[in-house]
């Protein structure tokens, strides 16, 4: 994320519970700019009662542990610690600071100041006071004004100021981590509280170092490969002029393309640039997350091999990976990309000449991919897009797949056994003889029509769609396998299986009905 947007402050939200200090230390070492310790008292009105009542622990416990752990390990200066979870008063803020927080998250209370009445219907779009709804009629009911929230925070600030004056502090910084000043006896007088020992919660780690956030993390992104790519693509980014870059890549070049993608998106938004405006040819073995978040207009062609997380969060870019031309390995029998490829991709195209690892296209919501085989759990939790596998798959294919389609070349005829059929149906792929369609040029010659038609009506046109993808695949990667299938299409076509999520098909049909039965 820091790569996509180096200016962003990266925050990691952690549930307040025993052991959270260790996790906080870990994410701080992993360069988080900010951690949030979230207590169990807060929570969105949309969450189920069970979660509201039974998840997490009080923010005080998690915050104390986090602060102490960070101080003990000399990490406290590098990270900002925020606390949230039903903070309501200035007193909460002061206690939070004394236990070690730099920042304080308020949500419910300012929402209430703006008119929320805790209906707990945020997830139903029926908020009766127009706070948490997209319904234009209900939004008219919203009566909140910025001044209501400003007022609320003035009161908070005033109470904080009063308490600080009583404690003798001039700045919040002086107050952070002064847990020695806390006392429980006065506030809590209940038989259940008898015998509780707060000494560990209030323990103050002795150190000469500052115990608040006063440094920034060194993210080690000043000399990454993307700086070079951005320099090379400057013209394209500024003026949309097409560029071609060629360079080597190594397995320490992680997240290649992400920062460039961020630059493109910053300038041109999600619409990005025209297809292939920035063509990057790379040679070698990439590090993890090759092509992550690549934007529209970026084409990243890798001659060599990918790693895990290729195309993570892909946002419109095109990724092409094939083995080195001089290599003698049989591409379709060897791994070309690692595990969890296309995790959470939203748009774009991928052509991988070779076999992918496990969890291929997990949580893909809109990208198109062609690959010559995948490991276990392919297309897990997929919600959109098209995946074409022209080789064997591992087990548990399509687990939790609720959208998009996958085509699998099932030469051995045993794919049904390896597919998780809980949410999907398997259908044959048939040549479409719909003369009308052909006549209108809708399904004809897909390659000429490009992406739009590949992503067209998913309930039909399968054979044409597969062929178009194969042609692209052969064209971009030189895949022998794709070439052979196309040559012997009549033989291979019946061996393709279409994986169609049941609810996805129903939704598509309903949408078609609404659109006038087309």
């Amino acid at each position: 994320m820091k790569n996509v947007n180096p200016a962003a402050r990266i925050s990691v939200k952690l549930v307040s519970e025993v052991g959270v200090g260790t996790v906080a230390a870990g994410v701080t070492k992993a360069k988080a700019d900010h951690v949030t310790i979230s207590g169990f008292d807060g929570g969105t009105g949309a969450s189920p009662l069970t979660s509201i009542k039974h998840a997490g622990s009080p923010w005080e416990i998690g915050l104390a542990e986090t602060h102490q752990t960070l101080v003990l390990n000399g990490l406290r200066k590098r990270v900002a610690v925020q606390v949230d979870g039903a903070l309501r008063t200035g007193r909460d803020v002061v206690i939070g600071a004394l236990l070690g927080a730099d920042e304080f998250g308020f949500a419910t209370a300012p929402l209430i100041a703006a008119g929320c009445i805790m209906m707990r219907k945020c997830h139903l779009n029926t908020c009766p006071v127009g706070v948490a709804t997209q319904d234009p009629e209900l939004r008219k009911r919203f009566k909140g004004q910025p001044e209501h929230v400003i007022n609320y925070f003035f009161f908070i600030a005033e109470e904080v100021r009063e308490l600080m004056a009583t404690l003798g502090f001039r700045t919040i910084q002086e107050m952070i981590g002064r847990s020695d000043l806390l006392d429980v006896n006065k506030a809590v007088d209940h038989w259940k509280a008898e015998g509780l020992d707060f000494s560990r919660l209030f323990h103050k780690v002795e150190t000469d170092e500052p115990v608040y956030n006063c440094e920034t993390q060194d993210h080690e992104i000043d000399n990454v490969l993307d700086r070079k790519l951005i320099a090379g693509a400057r013209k394209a980014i500024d003026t949309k002029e097409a560029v071609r870059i060629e360079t080597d890549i190594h397995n320490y070049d992680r997240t290649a393309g992400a920062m460039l993608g961020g630059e493109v998106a910053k300038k041109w938004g999600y619409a990005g640039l025209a297809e292939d405006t920035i063509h990057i040819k790379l040679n070698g073995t990439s590090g993890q997350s090759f092509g992550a978040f690549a934007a529209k207009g970026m084409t990243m062609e890798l001659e060599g091999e990918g790693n895990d997380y290729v195309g993570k969060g892909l946002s419109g870019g095109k990724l092409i990976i094939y083995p080195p031309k001089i290599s003698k390995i049989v591409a379709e029998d060897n791994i070309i990309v690692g595990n969890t490829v296309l995790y959470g991709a939203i748009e774009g195209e991928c052509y991988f000449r070779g076999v992918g690892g496990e969890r291929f296209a997990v949580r893909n919501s809109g990208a198109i991919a062609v690959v010559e085989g995948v490991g276990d759990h392919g297309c897990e939790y997929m919600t959109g897009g098209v995946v074409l596998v022209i080789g064997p798959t591992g087990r548990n294919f399509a687990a939790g797949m609720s959208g998009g389609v996958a085509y699998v070349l099932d030469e051995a005829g045993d794919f049904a056994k390896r597919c998780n059929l809980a949410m999907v149906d398997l259908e044959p792929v048939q040549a479409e003889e719909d003369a009308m369609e052909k006549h209108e040029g809708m399904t004809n010659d897909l390659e000429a029509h490009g992406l739009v038609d590949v992503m067209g009506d998913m309930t039909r046109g399968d054979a044409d769609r597969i062929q178009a993808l194969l042609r692209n695949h052969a064209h971009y990667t030189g895949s022998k396998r794709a070439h052979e299938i196309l040559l012997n299409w009549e033989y291979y076509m019946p061996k393709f299986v279409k994986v169609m999520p049941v609810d996805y098909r129903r939704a598509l049909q309903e949408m078609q009905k609404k659109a006038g039965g087309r």
Partner: protein
Amino acid sequence: MGKATGFKEFARQTPGYEKPESRVRHYNEFTQPLSNDELAKQGARCMDCGIPFCHQGCPVNNIIPDWNDLVYRDRWAEAIEVLHSTNNFPEFTGRICPAPCEASCTLNLEDIPVAIKTIEHAIIERAFADGLVQPEKPKAATGKKVAVVGGGPAGLAASQQLARAGHAVVLFEKNAYVGGLLRYGIPDFKLDKQVIERRVAQMKAEGVEIRTNAHVGVTVPVSELDAFDAVVLTGGSEKPRDLPVPGRELAGVHFAMDFLTQQNRRVSGEAFDAADILATGKKVVVIGGGDTGADCVGTSNRQNAASVTQIEIMGKPPVMEDKLVTWPKWPNKLRTSSSHDEGCDRRWSVATQSFFGEGGVLKGLNCVQVDDKFQPVAGTEFTLEADLVLLAMGFVHPVHEGLVDGLGLDKDGRGNVKADTVKYQTSNPKVFAAGDIRRGQSLVVWAIREGRQAARAVDEFLMGSSTLPR
């Protein structure tokens, strides 16, 4: 939870009324119930709020969203179970409660509240029709004897709860029938007295012994209460506020309750030995702008008064409240009851300075406009002609003579019997008090709440612990 989007799809519907010109010719109830389909829609309007403000808005803490949902889903038998779990007498509140629940309904903030009272009414009527209201006899008798003095809603609720807990309950009532103001105050056209009888039959079957014509402290000596392990006083707040201005003694000036009680007795054929107070053919002025006043207006019209005027000392309240300020509380706003629609001239900010008459018989009132501190505004004096004046200015406190003083109980600053709302215990440890006698004039729904809670307090007092709900 009703239907998530129900409140956006369906408009609020409440029962229709028979037309004023025909309903003033009789003393029967005149609401026209909704169909089951319509009721389901009304239930669907409930949003099952994360914070159900109606729970607190309702003095008996009715679990409103749950039975709204059950009605929406056509599960009426469960609906009455949930409703009865918090309210002994939904047939009373479903008819004559001002429904503070609806004021506190979340929908009332930006929209129009769920028709809660209508649904409540429908649930209990259907339950009676379907034979679902059966005596709930106690599993075992405790051997304890409890006297309940006063048969209004507080006394009825306390008796029913205590009998169900297994105590031997004797309910004393000074009148010929129980019901308190439900029977002798609220007119038949708002609450048919058969509705009370139906419930009393259930209570008798549950073991409550009812002794009518038993005026404790007057016809029944207070010492008879010694035989009981505990006593609950639910005698109401029966001392009316008087208007001691010149001419008060003129013939034709009466307390509202004397007038209303007579008519209720007339309707049920109960004899009374007092001269008739009738509005027939008379110019009637009702002093007091509250519920009692409205009932006087409705009754006067049914008796064919020549004219009816209602005057109120307070200023005219706003027609629409500022909900952002008042919600979810009960707002002060102009309330027009069905009785007002039957014909009546209403005036606000009016004080009566004296009555005038001829030969000891009332002829009219000398009035004046007042400011918001109730001070007369000079030059605004005017007169109203009247043959009958009904004083409906509320009740100051319970009658002290006889019962309260006979037991020597402490009183609070307002002259009500002193007891808190946790133990409901008076200065005599075995004597408890609930309803208007303790809190001053109030509402039926509050009387039911206090009766229920006092029953629990008594049960705890007698048994050490209680499973009765609070």
